C-alpha cells in the first residue's frame, strides 16, 4: 500500500536542529514508512479489508495456546476465531461480527505468537469497533458502562478538581454497590485514589518547560565535557491519564531523571492514548483522542523532541495501534519516534554505567517485577530487571510470563472479575513465593491488580531509578 495517505516519511517530521552525529541515536534511520500498511477503517474505505491477513493464517492454533482469556473462559473461542476466521467468514456473506469479540481483553499476546505475522490484534480492534458501532444497543447497561470505563479520563478530570471528595465518594461502599448493580462495575475493587495535585498542576507550578530547560542546562554543565555538545536534548513526555491524575510521582520521577541526564522536558497538551477505548470498541472516541495526540506530538517532534511515555500501554498505542487503525498526517512519524521512558534513556545514555557508579541507599531493596503484556510486545519487558541488576543493594526478580489478568478495564467489569483474578492467580503465587515485598511494573492497571491480589505496595521502575540516581527534591 505505497499510496497510503500517511506514507509521510519520518524524516519529514524530523527535527531541523539535530546534531549531525551518526552515533546519536536520534539520527538513527527510521524504517521506511512504506512498511506501515494502514488499513482504512474510516472515511473513504467504509469496507474494512483484512483479507490478506486472513489468507496468511494456516490455522496452526499457536495463538489460541497463548491467549490468557481462552485459558480460563471456555466460552471464549480464542484469537484465531476472533481474527482470521471471523474475517474469512465475513467475506463469504453478510455475517455479523460475533459478540464474543467483546471478551477479548486486548492484551495483544496473540500478536507476537503468530509465526505467520497475521495482524491479530488489529483484526480484533476493528471487529470490536464494528460490533459496538453496528450491533450494540446504545442504551444498554453494558454500552454505558463500557463507555464510562473507556472514557475514564473524562471522569478523572472532574474528580481531580475535588480529589478528596471524589476519593471519599469512590471509596464509599454504598457507591460501590450501586456501581455494581447499576453499571456492572465490580464492587470487589477499590477505586484508585486521585492525587491532591495532578502531574500537570505540579509541572505548571514548577515553571513548565522554561524551568526544565534551565535545569537541564545546569545538569549538562555539571556533567560537563562531552555532554555540552548536546544542546538540544529534548523529549516530549506523554504522561497518560493515570500518571497525571492518580500517580503524579511517576511523572515527577520521569522529569527528574531526564533532567538529571540533561534533557529538557516538554509536556504537550494531550488526551487519553486510546487504549481503554480500543479495548471497548469505542473507536470513534479513540479516533478523536488520537487526532489531538498525533497533532500535538508531531508538533513536538517538529521542535526537535522525541516522545517518551511511562505507561507501556500508552507507548504501545502510539507505536502500533495508531498506525494500524488511523491515518492522520504524522501518524507514522509519531510511531517511529515514540519510546518507553527507560528504553529511551538506555539507548542514549550510559544508564548501566550510571547505575553501577551510583551509591544509592537502596540496601536490601527487593522487587517482584511483573512484565505487562504491552511491554512484552514492544520488547522492553525485561529491562527493569536488567537495570536494577546494575544497582548495588537492589534486586528485582521477574515473577514469570503470565498475564496479570486485569487488562485495563477488563478486570473492572463485574462479569469479568472472576476470570481476571483467575488469570492473575499465577502472578500472585509467584509474587508470594518471591522473597521481595514490593512489586514493580510499568503498567498502572497491572500495578492495581498486583496490589489487589497480594496487598503489596507496587512501584514504577522510573521511581526506583530516580531515587537511585537523582538526590533530593529539585
Amino acid at each position, binding site marked *: 500500500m505505497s499510496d497510503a495517505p500517511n506514507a509521510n516519511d519520518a524524516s519529514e517530521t524530523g527535527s531541523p536542529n539535530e546534531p549531525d552525529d551518526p552515533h546519536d541515536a536520534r539520527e*538513527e534511520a527510521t524504517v521506511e514508512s512504506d512498511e506501515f500498511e494502514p488499513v482504512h477503517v474510516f472515511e473513504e474505505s467504509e469496507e474494512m479489508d483484512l483479507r490478506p491477513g486472513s489468507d496468511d493464517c494456516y490455522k*496452526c*492454533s499457536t495463538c489460541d495456546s497463548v491467549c490468557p482469556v481462552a485459558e480460563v473462559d471456555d466460552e471464549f473461542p480464542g484469537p484465531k476465531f476472533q481474527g482470521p476466521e471471523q474475517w474469512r467468514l465475513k467475506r463469504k456473506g453478510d455475517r455479523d461480527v460475533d459478540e464474543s469479540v467483546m471478551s477479548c481483553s486486548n492484551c495483544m499476546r496473540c500478536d507476537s505468537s503468530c509465526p505467520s505475522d497475521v495482524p491479530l490484534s488489529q483484526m480484533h480492534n476493528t471487529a470490536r469497533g464494528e460490533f459496538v458501532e453496528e450491533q450494540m444497543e446504545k442504551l444498554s447497561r453494558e454500552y454505558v458502562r463500557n463507555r464510562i470505563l473507556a472514557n475514564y479520563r473524562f471522569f478523572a478530570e472532574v474528580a481531580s478538581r475535588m480529589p478528596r471528595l471524589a476519593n471519599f465518594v469512590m471509596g464509599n461502599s454504598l457507591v460501590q454497590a450501586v456501581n455494581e448493580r447499576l453499571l456492572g462495575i465490580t464492587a470487589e475493587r477499590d477505586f484508585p485514589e486521585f492525587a491532591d495535585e495532578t502531574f500537570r498542576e505540579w509541572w505548571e507550578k514548577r515553571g513548565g518547560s522554561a524551568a526544565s530547560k534551565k535545569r537541564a542546562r545546569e545538569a549538562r554543565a555539571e556533567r560537563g565535557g562531552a555532554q555540552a555538545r548536546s544542546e538540544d536534548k529534548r523529549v516530549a513526555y506523554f504522561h497518560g491519564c493515570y500518571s497525571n491524575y492518580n500517580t503524579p510521582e511517576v511523572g515527577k520521577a520521569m522529569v527528574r531523571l531526564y533532567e538529571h541526564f540533561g534533557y529538557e522536558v516538554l509536556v504537550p497538551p494531550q488526551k487519553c492514548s486510546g487504549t481503554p477505548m480500543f479495548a471497548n470498541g469505542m473507536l470513534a472516541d479513540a479516533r478523536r483522542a488520537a487526532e489531538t495526540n498525533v497533532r500535538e506530538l508531531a508538533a513536538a517532534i517538529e521542535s526537535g523532541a522525541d516522545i517518551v511515555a511511562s505507561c507501556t500501554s500508552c507507548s504501545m498505542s502510539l507505536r502500533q495501534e495508531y498506525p494500524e487503525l488511523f491515518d492522520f498526517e504524522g501518524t507514522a512519524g509519531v510511531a517511529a519516534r515514540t519510546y518507553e521512558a527507560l528504553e529511551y534513556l538506555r*539507548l542514549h545514555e550510559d544508564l548501566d554505567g550510571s547505575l553501577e557508579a551510583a551509591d544509592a541507599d537502596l540496601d536490601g531493596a527487593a522487587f517482584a517485577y511483573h512484565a505487562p503484556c504491552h511491554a512484552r510486545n514492544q520488547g522492553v519487558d525485561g529491562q527493569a530487571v536488567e537495570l536494577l541488576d546494575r544497582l548495588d543493594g537492589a534486586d528485582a526478580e521477574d515473577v514469570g510470563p503470565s498475564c496479570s489478568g486485569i487488562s485495563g478495564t477488563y478486570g473492572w467489569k463485574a462479569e469479568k472479575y472472576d476470570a481476571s483474578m483467575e488469570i492473575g492467580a499465577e502472578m500472585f503465587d509467584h509474587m508470594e513465593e518471591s522473597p521481595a515485598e514490593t512489586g514493580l511494573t510499568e503498567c498502572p492497571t497491572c500495578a492495581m491488580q498486583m496490589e489487589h491480589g497480594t496487598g503489596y505496595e507496587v512501584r514504577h521502575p522510573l521511581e526506583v531509578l530516580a531515587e537511585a540516581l537523582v538526590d533530593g527534591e529539585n
Partner: protein
Amino acid sequence: MAIEDDVTVVGGGLAGMTAALAAAREGAAVRVVSHKDSTLRSASGLVDVLGYDSDDELLADPFEAIPDLPERHPYRTVGAAGVREGFALFDDVVGDRYRGDHTDLNALVPTHGGTVKPTARYPASVAPGLASDDRPVLLVGFETVPDFDAPLAADHLRAAGVPFPVRGVTVRFPGGFRADAARTRLADALDADERVAVGDDAGPYSESLPIRRALAETAKDHLRGEKRVGFPALLGRHETEEVRADLEAELDAAVFEVPTGPPSLPGMRLEGALRGACREAGVRFTTGNPVVDFEIDGEADDSDPDSLAAVRVERNGAAIPFHADQFVLATGGLVGKGVDSDRERVREPIFDCYVPHPDDRYDWSADGAFGDHAFARFGVETDDDLRPLDRRGDPEFGNLRAAGAVLGGYDFAAEKSGSGVSLATGLAAGRRAAEEATR
C-alpha cells in the same frame, strides 16, 4: 550509551537458545534478540541426529554416517565430536524429561501420521510407544483433535510392518469442552485434574469425575487386552508424568504420547526447559521485534573482514541498536524466515550474506515433489569457524557466526537432522563467540 553485551544471538529457536546457553556457560554476557516465539512450538519435540543417508536408507547409527556426508554438510564442519557435545548439552538441560541418551542408535517413534520416525532423543512420555517394543498397542484419538486420526494411524503402522498388533479408536474427549477448544486447554484441564461432568448430558443427575479418571474410563471401554495405550500429545503442559502415571494406574497398561502437529505440547515443554536453562545461566531475552539491519565497527581496516558493531531491531518504525562484541546468526531457514527468496535470487535478509544457489531459477527444484531439490539445501556457507562466507570465499564479517537452519548444505526434512544440526552448530558457534568476546 546504548545496550551492550558480549555476545548477541539473533534468533530464539533451538539453534539460538543453544548458542546463547553455550556462550553464557563460558562466562559471556549474552542476549538473544528474536522476532517470534521459537518455532519449537510447531516442531514435534523429537530431536534427531540423522535418520536417513543420502540414498534414503534408514540409518541405525547416525554417528557412523557423519564422515560420509558431503563436505559442505554442517556436521562435517563441527565433526562427530561436535555433534556429541551438542547432544551432551541438550541431555544436561532436559534431564530425565528425555530418553535415548544411553545409546548412539536411532530409536523408532510412531508419529501421528502413522509413520515410524528414526530419532536420537524422545520425550519420556513417548518412550513406552517405541516401535521396537512388541507389546500390542491401542491408539486413542479424539474427535476434536483432527490431526491425529487413530484408526488411520493404526492402519499405516500395520502397513509399515511394526512388530506388534495395533488398533485405533476415536472417542469424545470427556467433559463438555467446546469442539474447537485449544489443545492447551485440554492439557491444562489434565494438569489441574479438573472435575468434569460425565455420562448422559440430558440426565438430571449428571455425575462428575476428575478428568484423568474420566479419560481413563473412556479409553478403558475400548481396551481389548492391549498392554500399551497411545494418546495424542496433550497429556498436560507441566504435569505430564503425573497425568501419565494416573492413567496407567487406571488402565493397567503403559500410556504414551504420540507427537502431533502444531501447536505441539512436547515442543512447548522443550522450549520451556531451554528458556529456563538460559535464564539460569543469565541469558537476556529481547523478543517481539525483528532484526532488520546492522552497524559496522568504524575501526575495521582494509586487510581484515569488516567487524559488526551492532544489529538494529525494528520496533514500530524506529531502529534500535544492540551492540556486542560477537554475533551469532540463528534465524532459521525458509520456515523461520532466516533465508528468503524472490523470483530473482535467494538471500539472507539481515546481513545479505551470500547464499549459493543456481543462477537459473528452474534449477532450484527438481522434477516431482519429492525430488532432490536444491532449495532444500539453501543457506549460508561457512568456514571451519562457522563464519558465513561471501561470494569469494572470505568471511563476510570477522565477528559473525551462523548456526542452525540458516546454514546451507543439508536437507533437514529429507535426512531428519533438524534439531541435531541446530544443537551441534549452536553449541560450536556460541562457544567460539564467547571465547572471542571474553578474551
